[in-house]
């Protein structure tokens, strides 16, 4: 599906975030449009997760404005349009009593009306989300017994079950084997290309997905936006941001 450059999903202007007099993010401005696939990279402690948390309303910016679907963050109510998969997705407590179906069904909770149980439509959307993530056969398994790669797909199915327009993923690859990771990138690509879901993805694996993504944001207190990710790896900006030779980062990523 083509990218719609008319209406930004996120419209961020002059965002600053300071905590205990330490600047975490400085003067960040960007727009993310419907249908885009944006990857966010940057060194640890560079502010990637903070930025994402501000977009989701979990942290308040020190200054600057965030608009979501044209509305100020405070006035924005349709949060089900945004699917969030946090960093710790693969690290959930293994004794939490939840089957895969229990977790994916949570994706419908915010949309339901009180007093009403899951409708036929809800059940179908949940089933559809599980099909897309290829986890239907795990339906009755406890999430605690799943592998890292399986859990990751369950978390995304939960996000998909709210029928989001945009998926925001914060490095959900912790503890996931290489093969599952490759499958995971294919799935993201498919969601973006075939379903038209906008994707914002914090990752370290930029070398692997450089072909899939549309734009690359490098965040290290400031943001540098690169419209041609394939060239980004040799960008001078990269070395400035990391403070080391960018080629080293590139090579390092291919060792995995």
């Amino acid at each position: 599906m083509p990218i719609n450059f008319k209406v930004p999903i996120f419209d961020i202007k002059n965002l600053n975030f300071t905590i205990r007099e330490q600047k975490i993010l400085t003067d960040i401005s960007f727009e993310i449009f419907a249908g885009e696939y944006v990857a966010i990279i940057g060194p640890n402690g560079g502010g990637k997760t903070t930025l994402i948390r501000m977009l989701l309303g979990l942290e308040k910016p020190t200054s600057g404005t965030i608009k979501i679907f044209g509305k100020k963050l405070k006035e924005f109510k349709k949060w089900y349009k945004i699917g969030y998969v946090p960093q710790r997705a693969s690290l959930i407590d293994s004794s939490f009593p939840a089957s895969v179906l229990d977790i994916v069904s949570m994706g419908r909770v915010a949309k339901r009306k009180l007093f009403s149980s899951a409708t036929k439509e809800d059940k179908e959307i949940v089933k559809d989300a599980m099909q897309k993530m290829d986890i239907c056969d795990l339906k009755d398994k406890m999430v605690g017994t799943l592998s890292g790669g399986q859990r990751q797909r369950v978390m995304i199915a939960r996000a998909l079950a709210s029928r989001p327009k945009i998926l925001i993923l914060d490095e959900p690859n912790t503890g996931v084997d290489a093969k599952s990771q490759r499958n995971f990138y294919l799935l993201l690509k498919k969601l973006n290309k075939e379903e038209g879901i906008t994707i914002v993805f914090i990752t370290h694996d930029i070398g692997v997905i450089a072909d899939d993504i549309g734009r690359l944001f490098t965040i290290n207190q400031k943001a540098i936006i690169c419209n041609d990710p394939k060239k980004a790896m040799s960008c001078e900006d990269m070395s400035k941001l990391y403070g080391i030779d960018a080629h080293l980062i590139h090579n390092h990523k291919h060792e995995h």
Partner: protein
Amino acid sequence: MIEMLSYDFMQRAFLAGIIIAILASVSGTFIVLRRYSMMSETLAHSALVGVAVGLVGGYNPLWMAVIVAILSAWLIEYLRSSFSLYSDAVLAIMLSGTLAVAVIVVSLGGALNNSLFSYLFGSILSVSKEDIITISIFGSISLGLLLIYAKELYFVAYDEEVAKTSGLKVVFLNYLLVSIAAVIIALSIRVVGSLLIGALMVIPTASALQYRVGFAKTIFISLIIALLSVVFGMGLSFFFSLPSGATIVLSVLVLFVLSLVVNKQ
């Protein structure tokens, strides 16, 4: 068994015990999953302040316990979310603080006698008809709210932040859960006693979690365990003339150990 139920007071005791078992185990599942287990202990002690005021001032102790427990629950939730203090420290402070207040109120009022003792350890055999009516009314309201918001509360217990970013009113849901827990705990202290109600809320769920089943089944197992414990415990209490609160808790502990053994991998 039949002989036991031929007494009026035993019938009332059983009825009260069964209602409390249902309330404590179902709400307990949410409390444990939300990692509020210690809060149930603290609220049980806060409720004693209500009991103390009731005993000294001549009000219905059960009603007063409900009111004070709800206020304490709100205070704890407020402190926990606003000041990011170590939340277990907040609970410990409230627990000893409220117990101290309760004891002082009672001794100033000259009522430091058996009546407070019966609220500490529970006195199921002295449950009155009026108590059963109060427990049934407040209990149904709490259980109803819990079931209406079950899916939302489950989501928040699973991951508060993701629930929030999905658009759930997490602050409201947190206050709702602690209020429901407060009401149920306050209702229960007449039966199981404030020193022991925490056990009846937490242990059935802790046992059910050993079976590693989904959410609905976990609630169901914890309900069965709570019911069995109350029935066994009251039987033991009747036949061996032991305090009912203690025998109920001992029964639930036995079932907990059994659940551990059966599910040992």
